[in-house]
C-alpha cells in the first residue's frame, strides 16, 4: 500500500497542478473555482505523498532487516484479485457496447448474458436460457410496451 499512497498522491498532485494551469486560461470568474480546487487538490496531495514516502522508506528498512535475518515480509494485496475474470468481463462489456447499436438491444443483451455467464463458469444450459429469456422478456415488457423508451432497434427489424 505504501507505493500506492505515494503514486496516487503524485497522480492527484498532477491533476491539481493541471487544473490550475488550465483554469488560468479561463475567462474571469469562470477561473475562480478551477484554480481554487486545483490548488486545494495539490495541497491535500502533499501529506499523502509525504506519508507514502515515509512508509516506503520504513518498509525498505524492514525488508532489508528481514532479508539479513532470512525472514519473509507480507506482500501488499493485489490491485485486481483475478485478472482473467476481470478482463473477460471488461472485454465482453466493450464488445457488448460496440455491437449494441448494430445488432439491436434485445438480441445483443441476450447474447451478452449467455456468453459472459458461460465464460464466468456457469455450466447449466437450462438455468442460463431460463434466466436470459425471463430477464429479456421483462425488460421488453417494461421498456418497449409500458414505458415506450427508444432502444437500439434489432437488426432483423431495421428497414
Amino acid at each position, binding site marked *: 500500500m505504501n507505493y500506492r499512497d505515494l503514486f496516487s498522491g503524485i497522480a492527484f498532485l498532477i*491533476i491539481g497542478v493541471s487544473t490550475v494551469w488550465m483554469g488560468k486560461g479561463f475567462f474571469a470568474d469562470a477561473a475562480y473555482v478551477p484554480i481554487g480546487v486545483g490548488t486545494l487538490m495539490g495541497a491535500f496531495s502533499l501529506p499523502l505523498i509525504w506519508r507514502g514516502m515515509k512508509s516506503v522508506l520504513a518498509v525498505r528498512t524492514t525488508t532489508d532487516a528481514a532479508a539479513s535475518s532470512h525472514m519473509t515480509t507480507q506482500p501488499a494485496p493485489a490491485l485486481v484479485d483475478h485478472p482473467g475474470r476481470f478482463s473477460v468481463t471488461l472485454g465482453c462489456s466493450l464488445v457488448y*457496447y460496440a455491437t449494441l447499436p448494430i445488432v439491436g438491444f434485445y438480441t445483443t443483451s441476450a447474447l451478452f*448474458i449467455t456468453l459472459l455467464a458461460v465464460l*464466468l463458469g456457469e455450466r447449466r444450459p437450462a438455468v442460463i436460457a431460463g434466466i436470459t429469456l425471463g430477464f429479456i422478456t421483462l425488460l421488453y415488457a417494461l421498456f418497449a410496451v409500458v414505458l415506450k423508451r427508444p432502444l437500439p432497434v434489432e437488426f432483423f427489424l431495421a428497414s
Partner: protein
Amino acid sequence: MFESLLNALPVALQFGSLISLFVGTLIGILIGALPGLNPVMAIALMLPLTYGFDPIIALGLVAGIYNGSMYGGAIPAILLNIPGTPAAIATTFDGYPMTRKGEGGLALKTACWSSAIGGIVSALALMTLAPMLAKVTLAFGPAEYFWVAVFGLVSIAVLVGKDVSKGMLSALLGVIIGLVGIDTISGEERFTFDSLYLSGGFELLIVLIGLYAVPPVLEMAEKRNESYFDSDSFRAKPSGGSLGLLRRHWRTWSRSSLIGVAVGILPGAGGNLAALLSYNEAKRKAPDPESFGSGNPVGVAAAESGNSADNAAAMIPSLTLGIPGNLVAALVLGALMIHGLQPGPQLFTRSPDVVFGFMWQMLLTAMLLLLLGGMVATRLFAQVLRMPSALLVPTTLVLMAVGVYTVNGNVTDLYVMLAFGLAGYLLNRLGFPLAPVVLGVLLGPMAEQNFRLTMLIAQNDWTVLFSRPISLGIIALLAVVLLSQLWKALRQRRQSQYQGS
C-alpha cells in the same frame, strides 16, 4: 387553516384518489428500483395521461410516484450497490455491506420503515409548517446556498472514510468532474478538450452508476461462480420485529426526518443532500462511528428517513410561494396549472380541497409504503440475490446499460460509465472513499454558481460571505464538524502514544 385541512380529508379518501395513490406508489417503487429511471421522468410521462382526470386523482398519482420512488431507489442500493435514484447514494454506504453480511432482509425492512416514517414526518410538516417555514427560506440568498453546499461537501469528505486527506481529494476530484462542460454563467467551455460530448458535461446518473455500480459487479465477476450473497440473507429479521425496529431507530428517525424537512424547504437542495447530511449526523452521534460503512442499520435508517423527509417538505415553497424546490415540485406546479389552478398563496383560499387534499395524499402514500414496500421489495425484488454470480454479473451489466442508455439515447454514455467504473474500482482499492466524489459532482456546481452570484451581487466584496447571520450559523456548524474530527484525531493519537509507551 385547520378546518380546511380536515375538510380535505374525505376528498383524499375518495375511491378514485385511493386507487391513484395505490397505483402511483406501485409505479414509484418500480421506477425507483430501476436505475436510469427517475420520478421526474415517470411523473412527466404520466402527466399528459391525467388531463381528463380530476385534479385530486392526478395529484394522487404524483404523490404515489414521488414517495414510492424514494423507497424504490433503496432496493437496488441495498441489493446491488446501485443507487436507484441519486437520493439513495447514502443508502448504499451501509445497505450493501448489510446484504454482503447476510442481512439484506433487515436492510430492506429498515429502509421501508425509515422511508415511511420520513415521509409521514415530511407530510405532517407540509400540513402544519408550510406557510411559516416558507418565510424563513426567503432569507436564504446565494451566500447561504454556497455555505450549505460547502458544508455538505466538507462534512462528508471529513466524516466518510478513515483518512481526511483522501476524503478531501475524492471530493475535489468530484468538483473537477462537475466543472467539465459549458459554464452556465459565462458560456465558456471548461475541460472539454474540444469534444462535443464533453461540452454537455457529465450526466450525474452516469457518473453515479459508473462509480457505484460497476466496481461491485467487477468484484462479483472476480469471484468463483457461486451465489454472491449469503443464502440466509432474508432470514435476518430485526429482533423484536417491527416494534424492535421502532425502539432501536426512533432517535435516528426523528433527527434525520427533521434534517430532511429542513433541507427539503430549501429550494434546490434535494433528497440526496438530506440523506447525506442525515447519515453524517447519525455517524457523528453514534457510539460506534467506525461501524458505519460496514453494515450498520442506523446508517440505512438515517439515509432513508432523511431522503424521504425531503419529499413533501420540498413542496412547501412551491405550494406557498409558487417557487419549485426541485424538479418534482416543478412538475406538481405543472400538474396544478394543467388543471387550471394557479400556485401561490391564493391557492390555499381558492382551492383548499385540492391543496390540502394533496397534503393528505402525501401522508397516505408514505403510510402505503409500509404495505406495498414490504410486499413488493422483500418478496419480489429480493429474489435477485438467489442468482449465481455468473448470471448476476451480466444481467446487472445489462440493467445498467439500459438505465444509462435511456438517459440520452447515446452509446458513448456506456463507455463513459465503464470508464467511471474502472476509476471507482481503482479508487476503492487505493482506499479513497467514493461518496465524496459523487457529492463533489453534485454540490460543486451548486457551490460555484452561488459563490459567483454572491460575488456578482456584492461586486467582488468577499466580506459578504461572512457577514450574514444565517451564513455565520452554517460556518459555525462547519467549524463544529471540523473541530470534532480534529479532536477525535488528537485523542486517537494520544491513545496510541499511551499504548505505545
